[in-house]
């Protein structure tokens, strides 16, 4: 291990997790905190804590120069970015590189390339990874109808210059295309000064699946199974699980191959996630994007593989060879994570920061809680509302769901409003229990049922 002291530049549960992982490996952990996080768990656990700026992220966690200055001034030889904040900003990774600090993540050029959606898709295509089938420029309604015959209905028409839904419409038939094409093209021309249209297959019944990958930066890449994160609200994941129990084994293998093929092609370094749309009706997968960092939901992959992925990040960054073969990373059992947020699910998910007067997470077999909270902790109002993650593990998905229900029932948090009632509600839904889910399920079915129950 060539790393001897790391600067942890994130906050919340992931900062506490990073500090503990470093310390377990004998690496000293310095925690950079904003004024608001002086008494945070990461600050208490760290070997040293420095206050880098005031509470607003812009003046603390989001200033790359301030972070690298702190690393240099405290004698750190590495920096762990966590997730969110600057974790996927190539600027931070390259500033670290320029000053001899080991950035615990991918190379800056990888972050930049994968962070650009077009370039990421080009790389995926070059690596033979399937994308959502679509077309180039479409001249008129007739051309659209011809293309749709090939793609299959429903299709999604989009403006090339587009954004914000202008010029976009779903067509379920040739008639829809005839009726909508000119209107949409005109709308796009008015909005963007360019009426060019193109078409994509529209996935009616989609799951969000993603593959946890690791690379040694030299072309050796491994996966740690896939995660199913289909329960989302406004593109925010709420429940995540591993494996994706709804996916047949043959498709799962194709999914893993696709993910590894992409990251191998860029000689990916350290941890990452390749995200896909899983078209359940057609039994196909389409590449979405790569998250070039560790993710919130990484614990479910740890639970089913037995690897500590944060420690592995340190080891790989510290120059250890990634000396496993894929068959040494078997996926065993099932794990589900749900995110505990300080927000009011009855009031449009309004954040509810405040002081936790009673923090009693569940415990027991297969129950893991990753959190930075404790009795008396003040959840500050400046940052995101996640206060912890409940992760349960069991031999099968059915047992795992039961264990999750029991663990949620035993969770007790007083002093602020949380989304615990919603999590309990979801965990009891027949669709959740039977794994009949897609990315629109929560907003179209789960939440309305939750609201109805409360009246």
């Amino acid at each position, binding site marked *: 291990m060539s790393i001897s002291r790391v600067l942890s530049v994130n906050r919340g549960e992931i900062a506490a997790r990073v500090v503990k992982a470093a310390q377990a490996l004998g690496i000293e952990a310095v925690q950079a905190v904003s004024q608001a996080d002086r*008494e945070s768990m990461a*600050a208490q656990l760290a070997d040293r804590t*420095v*206050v880098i*700026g005031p509470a607003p992220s812009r003046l603390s966690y989001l200033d790359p120069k*301030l972070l*690298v*200055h702190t690393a240099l*001034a405290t004698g750190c030889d590495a920096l762990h970015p966590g997730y969110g904040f600057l974790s996927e900003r190539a600027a931070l990774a390259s500033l670290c590189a320029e000053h001899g600090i080991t950035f615990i993540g991918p190379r800056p050029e990888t972050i930049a390339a994968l962070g650009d959606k077009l370039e990421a898709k080009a790389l995926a295509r070059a690596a033979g990874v399937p994308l959502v089938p679509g077309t180039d420029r479409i001249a008129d309604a007739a051309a659209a109808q011809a293309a749709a015959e090939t793609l299959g209905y429903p299709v999604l028409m989009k403006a090339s210059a587009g954004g914000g839904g202008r010029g976009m419409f779903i067509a379920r038939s040739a008639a829809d295309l005839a009726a909508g094409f000119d209107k949409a093209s005109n709308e796009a021309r008015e909005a963007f000064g360019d009426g060019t249209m193109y078409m994509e297959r529209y996935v009616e019944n989609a799951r969000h699946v993603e593959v946890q990958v690791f690379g040694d930066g030299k072309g050796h890449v491994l996966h740690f199974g896939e995660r199913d994160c289909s329960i989302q609200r406004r593109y925010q994941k709420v429940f995540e699980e591993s494996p994706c129990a709804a996916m047949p084994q043959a498709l799962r293998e194709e999914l893993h191959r696709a993910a590894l093929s992409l990251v191998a092609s860029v000689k990916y370094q350290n941890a990452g996630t390749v995200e896909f749309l899983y078209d359940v009706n057609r039994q196909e997968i389409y590449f979405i994007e790569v998250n070039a960092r560790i993710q919130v939901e990484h614990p479910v992959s740890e639970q089913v593989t037995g690897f500590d992925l944060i420690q592995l990040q340190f080891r790989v960054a510290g120059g250890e060879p990634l000396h496993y073969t894929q068959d040494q990373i078997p996926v065993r059992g099932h794990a589900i994570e749900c995110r505990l947020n300080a927000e009011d699910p009855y009031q449009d998910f309004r954040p509810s920061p405040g002081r936790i007067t009673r923090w009693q997470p569940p415990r027991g077999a297969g129950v893991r809680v990753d959190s930075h909270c404790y009795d008396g902790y003040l959840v500050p109002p400046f940052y995101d509302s996640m206060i912890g993650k409940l992760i349960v593990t069991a031999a099968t998905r059915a047992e795992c769901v039961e264990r999750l229900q029991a663990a949620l029932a035993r969770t007790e948090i007083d002093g602020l409003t949380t989304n615990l009632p919603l999590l309990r509600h979801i965990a009891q839904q027949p669709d959740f229990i039977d794994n009949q889910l897609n990315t629109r399920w929560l907003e179209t079915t789960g939440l309305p049922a939750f609201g109805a129950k409360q009246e």
Partner: protein
Amino acid sequence: MSAGSNIKPQDVEGLIELFKASNWDEMHVQVGEFELFLSNDPKAVGPGKAVAAPAAPLAVSVAAPASAPATAPASIAHAPVTAAIPDGLVAIRAPNLGTFYRAPKPGAPPYVEVGQTISEDTEVCLIEVMKLFAPVAAGLRGVVREVLVKDGQMVEFDAPLILVEPAK
């Protein structure tokens, strides 16, 4: 070795725990000069002297007192930026973590000297972050009384840099 001299506060605590865990009505321990009487009856009177009945259901009378008390641990391991500011003075503080410089460039005279009168806009030092030098304005009128930080030293956010006696 006398008996009474060896009773520790923890021993008393241990006996009280023992009593609490039991469902005894009362307990009397006498060790040399040390005497302990425990009762669940608030009106209970110890076997030597009268005891005022407390509100709590557990009456405790300890004759020979304990000396050194057990202390509670502080919650935070690394106390960050705290320093006592003398009465009547005000500190100009660091706007963020960075390196403190007293002068605009090496060899140049410092922005301010002790005894110097300053106003709100007076630049009093530089805070450098990755070769980005940001001047710090005094923010108040008064007289510089002390410079707390050495040239080139790392300061954290909110660290007191310069003490000023404010103008009346």
